[in-house]
């Protein structure tokens, strides 16, 4: 059944609030942390680690065309072509799935 407009708006409003709180919360926490070399290095490594963890966690559930697409995207993006990398990856997956 399709949810009514009111509960839909409440659900989305809550999602937006939660998301803004985590977005701003990281800044609040990082501001009260001491600026020691260890903390600075930790903050510097956070972003990249987030993205690596996202990719690895998703790949664990991917099918074969998905894995092949990721390898193609990785190789092309490493050559500095992020957009064609994405399109090429999707194309590879589409072709493999059409077989």
């Amino acid at each position, binding site marked *: 059944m*399709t*949810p009514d*407009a009111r*509960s*839909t*708006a409440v*659900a*989305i*409003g*809550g*999602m937006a609030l*939660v*998301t*803004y709180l*985590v*977005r*701003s*919360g*990281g*800044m609040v*926490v*990082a*501001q009260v942390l001491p600026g020691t070399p*260890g903390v600075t290095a*930790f*903050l*510097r*490594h*956070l*972003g*990249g*680690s*987030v*993205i*690596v*963890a*996202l*990719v*690895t*966690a*998703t*790949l664990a559930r991917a099918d074969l065309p998905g894995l092949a*697409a*990721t390898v193609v*995207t*990785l190789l092309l*993006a*490493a050559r500095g072509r*992020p*957009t064609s*990398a*994405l*399109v090429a*990856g*999707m*194309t*590879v*997956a589409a072709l493999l*799935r*059409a077989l």
Partner: protein
Amino acid sequence: MTFAGGAEFSIAGLRRGALASIPLAIASAVLGAGFGVAARQVSLSAWATLLMSGSVFAGAAQFAVLPLWSAPLPLAPIWFSTLAVNARFSLLSASLTPWLKRYRGATPWAAAALVGEGQWAVATTAYAKGERDLGVFVGSGLVVWTVWMAGTLGGFLAAPSLGDPRRFGLDLVLVLFFTATMTSAWRGPRDLAPWGAAALATRIPASIVAPEWQVLVAALIGAAVGAWRDTRR
């Protein structure tokens, strides 16, 4: 405008950020289209789809709640899933804090609303090259938000004529987008230890770390390993 410590926020910065985001913008538009298609398939209405993309602005979390979308809406699971999937944003904004904290008033709070992987990568790449104008991050975020909305609308409108989006690899847009972002965030061999640790840590069994917290825990471990390596003498 100039803030403490020579930190700037200018129109020129906004433009530099926007221009540096062109490849990212194309990817975000495709990602938005993927979400528009997926949302329509679970019969979200047009306004709800656009409201979600506009106000939540977080692809992974938006995809994650779609399977839950039927009446009566399970509010607590929807919000909890959003919290778990988006918790990683707190790490991205924490890593931007050395830059954000030079600004006063509403500026850092408004900028925080735009945090996401793509614009984080654009901004930190610029920061590493000496850029200190926060306009670069905001400009990138605004471009991504705009094309993300346009993509969402386009995908929503095109959905009925598309059929199964898996045929076009649309279900893979998110992971491929993150893969491309990961490559542009690579700063050389010194990233190997933290990245390897983060990747390995996603293999921690679900009995120890629940799947929805996997990314957050793995990222914290990766950053801790990087910090330990950097400060050990």
